[in-house]
């Protein structure tokens, strides 16, 4: 009997894998319910990426709808997302702030020189502590914060033109209308 059992090992391993994949089908890697939705944005105060002597904090978000984008130079998906942010910035429809997450200052600055800088300003979060407060799982992630500093939406994974058109911009317009 143990002889037979030995040859069943690959099958058992595969069935375990199949179980995992089955579970995976019901999960959406891009969707995580954020406990922070409709809560005030966690307070933070970090140096700015380009001007280390100036502080960026959530006080800067007050009074306007803000798109807060978490990114890093080591993140492949951020690279593919970047042109979308550039286009969005050109339209001027929403103020884009960035959280440069677990990155190196020089590398991040060079990235912005090279690919363009869609951000009004970036907070430089070298050890990722602010990212933890904001519940960042991975890059890129994008939050929408309203005029009162309340988080209204979180998008996980790279933004695409479709997502910006169908989800982000309508929400921004709606938020601007409600308290405009």
């Amino acid at each position, binding site marked *: 009997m143990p002889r037979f059992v030995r040859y069943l090992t690959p099958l058992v391993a595969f069935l375990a894998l*199949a179980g995992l994949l089955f579970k995976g089908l019901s999960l959406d890697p891009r969707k995580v319910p954020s406990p922070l939705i409709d809560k005030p944005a966690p307070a933070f105060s970090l140096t700015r990426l380009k001007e280390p002597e100036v502080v960026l904090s959530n006080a800067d978000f007050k009074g306007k709808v803000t798109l807060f984008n978490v990114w890093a130079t080591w993140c492949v998906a951020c690279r593919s997302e970047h042109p979308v942010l550039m286009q969005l910035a050109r339209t001027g429809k929403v103020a884009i702030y960035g959280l440069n997450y677990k990155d190196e200052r020089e590398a991040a600055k060079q990235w912005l020189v090279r690919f363009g800088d869609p951000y009004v300003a970036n907070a430089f979060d070298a050890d990722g502590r602010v990212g933890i407060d904001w519940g960042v799982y991975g890059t890129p992630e994008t939050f929408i914060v309203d005029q009162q500093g309340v988080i209204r939406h979180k998008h996980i994974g790279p933004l695409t033109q479709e997502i910006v058109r169908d989800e982000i911009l309508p929400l921004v317009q709606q938020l601007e209308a409600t308290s405009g």
Partner: protein
Amino acid sequence: MIPELGQYALILALCMAIIQAIVPLVGTFNRTPGWVALARPVAWGQFFFLLIAFAVLTHAFLVNDFSVLYVAQHGNTQLPVMYKISAVWGAHEGSLLLWVLILGAWTLAVSLLARNLPAEVMARVLSVMGMISIGFLLFLLLTSNPFARVFPVPAEGGDLNPLLQDFGLAIHPPMLYMGYVGLSVAFAFAIAALISGKLDAAWARWSRPWTLVAWVFLTIGIALGSWWAYYELGWGGWWFWDPVENASFMPWLAATALIHSLAVTEKRGAFKRWTVLLALTCFSLSLLGTFLVRSGVLTSVHAFASDPARGMFILLFLLVVIGGSLLLYAVRAPHIPRGGGFGALSRESLLLGNNVLLIVTTALVLLGTLAPLVYDAFGWGKISVGFPWFNTMFVTFMPLLIILMGAGPLTRWKHNDPAALAKRLKIALLISITAGVIIALPFSTGSVSAGIAVALSTWLASTLVSGLRQRLKNKPGIGGFINDLSGRGGRSYYGMWLAHIGIAVFVIGVTFVTQFDVEKDARMTPGQSIELSGYRFRFEGVNNVPGPNYRSQFGTVRVFKGDEEVALLNPEKRTYLVQTKPMTEAGINAGFMRDIYVSLGEPLGGGDWSLRLYYKPFVRWIWLGCIFIAAGGLLAASDPRYRNPLRHRREAAVTPAGAASAIRSNA
């Protein structure tokens, strides 16, 4: 009307596949020669209808038939003809159709080329391939119909993703699929052998050339993808450990293990169970790759339209195919006789080491790829596994593999005296350590990694040269070499030789470009020059140039070495008119020893641009190595001993009776 013909053709192909899967197999059980003989003509019929379906979809793209939903989504009147054709496999439905067509083509190839196969074996193999085809055709017809119509008919199509409008990426999927699907042949041979219970040297010999060819295509496909990423993404990288890349790399690693263990099974009758399990694993991994890419369980930069219904279908299919085959394995494996024994130091034991290392690596890649899913499934949060993890793993295991790779071909089958082997390897060891130390010394490169890489590559090269000298000792001159190359077993050896040299070249390329590449970001004004690694880059400015279906910001950079102009580079930023997606096209001057690479950043006003300049030493060696590896595989697959049973019998006639009958059963 024509698109409906495509759909009918698919349904007819499905009918053919069902007959192909059932009738010949039943024929082998109830010994009905007519049913057994049906396998080949039905396979041809299936291929014929698949070809019609594929031609119909291609035609729809060429004539801009936007009443077909798939064409309306991915076609466009402005698309150049070449990309209208490649758009056929530019998204989920069409690429699946290509997949099935290629499966049909492999089936056709087996039915036509494997002429020395006994009719019953042929029937079983084609039947298994028919079963796989049923699964994919059902998938296509039930969840992903490429011929679905749309009404009202749009006036213009949504266009092919601009990323895919590129020569490298037009031919990358067909090559890759040839590899993925080609592994189904080894799988079918393994299942056929398990069904019949005859896992012998003959089975290994029949499987070897097919496995090699599939592996060659997989190699080419992966290399093309990496080359594309290098010149198209505009940031000089060539491999990203993206889940989709891993999905192609895992079957490659497993297939590399398989071609080595098949050699042991054929030559020595050992590793039978292991080899058959590997053959099942290889194709299972390519099916798993399909699942990962198309079900949406992992995020990737290669986003296929994902759909849980499709994911569920593939998962069920995986359960039937992989689960079924592993169950068959569990039932049959205890009855497989043990193969020939071998000593602790023998070519078998070194090849076993090779297999273990390759499979451990495959498992680690699988683990890294699935880790985000595991974390998510158990509610531990979300993670992404990046470069550092995969790179550390590779840097740990590859040197061991290369050390074995050098020693293996010089080691005897069955048993090798350690002292004798040490004597044979002594000089190679000495040369490679010396070479490595020289490279690592401060006055040459000062890089320990480069030293190790050079030592490993020299080790491979010097052991290969030593083996070649040994082999040609009694075959003097160029004539001796040509005789050896054209004789039985010759091309297998020289194929191995070439592929292993390819690894040496690849290792140098990877290490040197990682260690010594130089890059610089700069703001440049037209006319300004910048020095980098002994080259002077002069930025001439950017013009707006219209392309066939895009607008281009066309940069010009002249590169000088001293006063001599060595390159005129044109990095571009293209905006495709339909999807308005910006794309970068790097300007590259390729060279044997280095690439000069420029990509265009953003306009900074007043004609100034941000530019990224790279000097990439030895980067071509990465793909040169891949070409050697693929060429070696092809050479080995073309060995006459796989095709020439006649001559083989004549040889057998002069050997002692026992051996002769053993060999005859192999032919």
